[in-house]
C-alpha cells in the first residue's frame, strides 16, 4: 500500500516540486503545488517510511555521470538523499545543481594544484560507487532523512576516511532535523563548534573573517539570514583522531554563492569567501 502511495507521489511529484535549478532569476515562477500531495509526502518523509524507498532515483537522471575509475583525482560528489522541504520544494539534494559545483571546480582547478574533474558526480548512500568518492557534499540537509541502512552506510563511509560537507540549511527547525539524522549516523559523537584557529580554516587560506554567506533569495529580500538562522555556525563532527569527518555550514548558503558567482546581482565578496571556505574544505579533506 505504501509503495503504491509512494509511486503515485513520485510519478506525480512534479506537481508539488519546485527545483532551485529552475531559473528563478530569469523570471521563472513557482509551480502550482498540490497541497494534499505535499502534505502526504511530508508525512511520509517525516515518518521515515519514504526514506526506505528510492523516491528520487538518480537512474532517472540522464545527466548523471557514472565512473568507476575517476578520470581525475578529485571528484565533487553530491549526495542524493531522500528529503523534501516542508514547504514542498521537492528533492532538496539537487538544489543549486549543477552550476554550484561546476563553478566551484573551475575555481578549485585555477586556485590550487588539485586535479579536479570539471563535472560533479552524483551518488546515493546505497551506491556501490559511494566509496570511490572520498569527498561528499550534501545540500539543504535540513530536509535530510536517513533510513537505518543509509545511516550505517554514511557512518561506514566516514569511518573509512570519507569527508562530508553539508551546507544551506537554516534555523532551529532544520537544525533539529539535521541533528536527528546525524544522530542516527553517530549517536555517540557530539557536534562541536569549530574554533577560528582550527586547521580547516588555515590549511590553504587563512580565513579569519567568518561572515555569514547568504543565499540569493534572502539577499533579494535584503537580509543574509533565512528561517530564523541569524548567526552562522561552522560546526563539525570529528573522528577518534580528532580529524573532521563532517564539516557543517549552518545558517549559510555556500552553494548559492558558488552557483551565482557569475551573476552580477550576487555580491562578489560572498562568492570569494565561499570559494575560500570550499577550497580549504577540499584541501583539508585531502590532507587529514
Amino acid at each position: 500500500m505504501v509503495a503504491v502511495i509512494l509511486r503515485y507521489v513520485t510519478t506525480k511529484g512534479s506537481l508539488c516540486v519546485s527545483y532551485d535549478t529552475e531559473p528563478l532569476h530569469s523570471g521563472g515562477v513557482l509551480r502550482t503545488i498540490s497541497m494534499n500531495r505535499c502534505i502526504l509526502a511530508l508525512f511520509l518523509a517525516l515518518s521515515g517510511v519514504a526514506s526506505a524507498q528510492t523516491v528520487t532515483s538518480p537512474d532517472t537522471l540522464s545527466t548523471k555521470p557514472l565512473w568507476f575509475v575517476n578520470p581525475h583525482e578529485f571528484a565533487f560528489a553530491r549526495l542524493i538523499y531522500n528529503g523534501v522541504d516542508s514547504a514542498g520544494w521537492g528533492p532538496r539534494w539537487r538544489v543549486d545543481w549543477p552550476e554550484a559545483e561546476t563553478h566551484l571546480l573551475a575555481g578549485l582547478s585555477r586556485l590550487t594544484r588539485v586535479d579536479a574533474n570539471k563535472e560533479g558526480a552524483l551518488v546515493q548512500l546505497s551506491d556501490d560507487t559511494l566509496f570511490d568518492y572520498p569527498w561528499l557534499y550534501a545540500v539543504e540537509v535540513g530536509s535530510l532523512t536517513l533510513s537505518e541502512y543509509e545511516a550505517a552506510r554514511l557512518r561506514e563511509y566516514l569511518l573509512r576516511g570519507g569527508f562530508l560537507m553539508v551546507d544551506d540549511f537554516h534555523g532551529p527547525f532544520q537544525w533539529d532535523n539535521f541533528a536527528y539524522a546525524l544522530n542516527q549516523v553517530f549517536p555517540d559523537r557530539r557536534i562541536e563548534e569549530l574554533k577560528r584557529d582550527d586547521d580547516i580554516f588555515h590549511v590553504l587560506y587563512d580565513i579569519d573573517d567568518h561572515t555569514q554567506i547568504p543565499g540569493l533569495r534572502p539577499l533579494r529580500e535584503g537580509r543574509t539570514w533565512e528561517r530564523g538562522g541569524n548567526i552562522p555556525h561552522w560546526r563539525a563532527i570529528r573522528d577518534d583522531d580528532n580529524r573532521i569527518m563532517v564539516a557543517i555550514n549552518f545558517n549559510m548558503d555556500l552553494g548559492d554563492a558558488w552557483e551565482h558567482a557569475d551573476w552580477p546581482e550576487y555580491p562578489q565578496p560572498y562568492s570569494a569567501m565561499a570559494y575560500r571556505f570550499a577550497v580549504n574544505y577540499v584541501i583539508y579533506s585531502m590532507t587529514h
Partner: protein
Amino acid sequence: MFEWLFKYPETDFDAGSLSFESGYPLWLLWTLIAIVAIILGVSLWRQRRQLSAPKLSILWVLQTAAAGLLVTMFWQPVLGVKTVRSGENAVAVLLDNSASMQYQHQGKSRIQNALGTINDDISDSLADNFTLSFATFGEQLEWTQSLDTVGPPANRSNITGSLLEVLDQARAQPLAAIVVATDGSDNSQAFTANSNNPESSFWEQLAGFNVPVHTIGIGRESMPEDMEITDVELATTTLPGSVEQATVTVRHGGSASNQSARIKVYAGDSIIALQDQTLPANAGEITVGIDIDATDAGLKELRFEVEAAASDTVLQNNSRSRLLQVEEKQRRILYFEGEPRWEYKFIRRAVAKSKGVALVTILRTTPNKFYRQGIDNPEQHANGFPVSKEELYAYDAVIIGNVEAISLNTTQHQLLHDYVSERGGALLMLAGNNALSDGGWQNSPVADALPAVITPQSRPAYERIRAKASLTSAGSLSAITRLSPDPETNSQLWQELPELADFQRFDSLKPGANTLLTAALPDGNYPLLTYQHYGNGSSYLLASSGTWRWQMQMPSEDQRHEIFWQQLLQTIGATATERMTIVTDQQSYLDNSSLQISANLLNAEFESDSTSVVTANVTSPDGTQQTIALTPNPENAGEFNATLEATDTGSWQIDVNAYESQSGNTADSEETLSDSPIATATRWINREDGIAESYGLPQNAAFLKRIANTTGGQYWTGSNADGIPAAIRSARNGIVRLQSLPLWNMPFFFILLLGIKLFEWVLRMLWGKL
C-alpha cells in the same frame, strides 16, 4: 695384510720413496733385462713349430718378467723413509675436558671413551719413540703429567685456542705431532666449531706451524633422540609496532610419520608466539621463521623453546635466549608531494598510529605554496624540498609523490641521488601523472638509483586503470607485505583486496631489482612494488597512487591498508644507515664474559668521523654503572672499539655516546667536548653461564677432519686410533733420520715370482707342451 705382504706399513710407502742401494748404474739393469728378454725370445722362437706365435709371446712375457724381477733384486731395491728419532721428538696429547665430554651414551661418558683410546691404544706405543706431553683443555689449556686423572669439566671448550697455544709454546721444540681427542664442539669466542669463515686466520695459522694434528672424534655424529635449537637470528633493535622475524634453526633426529615440533617464544612467562613445524623424515636441521610483534618500546627478554620429545635427554639445549630492544625513537620520513591527492591523505592516516614512524610531509597545494605537516617548527621546509645535506640527511627515508622533475633544481636532484648512494637512505617513488617518465625523471640522476629503467614514453605512462595487486614469491617472504604470518592466509588477504584505480608503466626492471607486488592489468602482469639496493642505501618504486582504495573499499575495521603502509615505511626507514651503530661480537654471551664492543660513527654529512670522542656507559644487571672509553681504530675510519669484562649474568645495557671534540684531537685527555652527544646508540647484551656446552652436542666430525687435513694429520675414531703411532712415526715432523728399508726380501716379490712361474706352468699344461 699389507704389512705382511710388503714388510712395512702402508704409511711408509705413502710417505717414502723407492730407490736402489747397490750402486750399480740403472742403465745396466735395463740392458741386462733387455739381453735376458732377447735370449728368452730366441729360445722360444725355436719352439715355434710346437706353439703358435701368440702363445709363445705370452710365455715370453711371463719368462721375461720373472727374469727381470730376479735381476732387479741384485740392484737391492729399498724404501727410503724419514722416521723420527726415538726419544728426541715430542708428541702432545690433548684431551677435551669440557662439560660436553661428560655426556653419556650406553653407560659410558665421552671422556671415558677418550681416555680409554688414549691410554690403551696410543700412549704406550707412542712412548716408545716420543716424549709425550699431556694436556687437558676446556676454556683454558692445562698441562698435566698424565691423563690418569682429569680435573672438573670446563663450561666452554676452546679447541682452536688450545691448539694454537700448544703450537706456539712448542716453537722451539721438535714437536712431531699433536693428538687431540675431542667431540669437536668448539664454542670459543674467536671461532665457532661449525664455522667455515674463510676470513678467519685460524686455518692459515694452523697450517703455518707445519705440525700434523691428529684428531680423534669422540661421540656420535648423529643424536636422533636429542632436539636442539642451534641458533636464533633476530634483529637486536627494532621500532615500536614493528614485526621482526626470528629465524630459528632446530636440529632434530628426523621423523617417520610427519611428527611436528612446537616452537614457543616467551617474553617473561608469557607466550607471545607459537609455531608448529613438521619435521622431515631425515635427521638434520630445519629453519623456521617466527614473527615477533614489537609492540611497545622497551627491552624484550625473549626465550625461544622447542618442546622436548619424550626421548630427549638434554633439555638445556631446547631453548635459547635473545634480547630485542624496541627503541623509543622514531624513523623520520620525509614525504614530498606535488599536489593534493587521496593517496597522500590515506598514507598519512595509515601511519598516524605507527609508533615507530614520524612522517613529515611537504604538500604543494598551489604552484607556490607548501602545506607542511609533522614539522618541528613553522620555518621548517617553508620553501619546499630541502636544499642542503644537513636538512635532507636527517631523514631515514624520503618519499617522492606526484612531482615533476623540473620542480627540483639540479642541486636537489643530485642531493636526492647522494642521499641514497652515500648517506644510505631509502627512497620511495610513487606513481602519478607528473611522476617517473611523465614527470621527466629519466633526466635526473635520481633515475640511476631507481630499481626500474625509465625512458620517455610515446603516450602517458600513468593511466587511470583497474589494476589488481598480487604477491610475488619474494613478496610472500617480505616483512613489507606480510598481512598475516601464515603464507596461505597472507596470499588470500592480498587476493581479497580491491583493485587499484591507476597504474604507471615503465620500461623494465634493473638487474638487481626485486619485485614484491605485481599488478594485473588487462594486457598482463607488471611490477607494482619493486626495490633495489643502490650504493649505501636502497630505492623503492610503487607504480600506483591508488592504494587508498584498499582503505575506502574495505570495511573500516579492516587494517590491511594501514598495516601495509606502516610496514613499508618502517622497513624502508629501518634500512637507512644511522649515524652511530654498535656491533658486538655475539648476540648472546654464554659462559663468556669478554665482550668486544665496536661503534661506527658518521658525522652530520654521513662521512666517517674519527675525530669525536666516544664513550660507553655500561649498566650491569644489578644496576652498577661504569663508563669506558672506546678507542678509535687507526685502520678503519670512524670505528671505535672497547673490551668489556661482563662477569655478572643477566642483561647488560651499553649506551654509547659520541661527543664532538673541539680540537679534533681524541687522544687529548683534557679535550673539551660538546655538552650533549652528537650521536647516541644503545645495545643490550645477554650473559648466561653454565649452558654453552649443552649446545652442539653431536660430534663435529667435519670440523675435526678439516683440522687434520689442514695440518697434514689424519682424522681418527676410537675404532682405528691405534694407527696413530705408526702414522706419526712415518711423518717427517720433528727430528728425523733417513732410513733405507730393504725390499728384496718382501714376501710379495716371492709370491709374485712363484705366481708367474705357476701361471706359465698352468698354461703349458693346458696347451699340452710341458
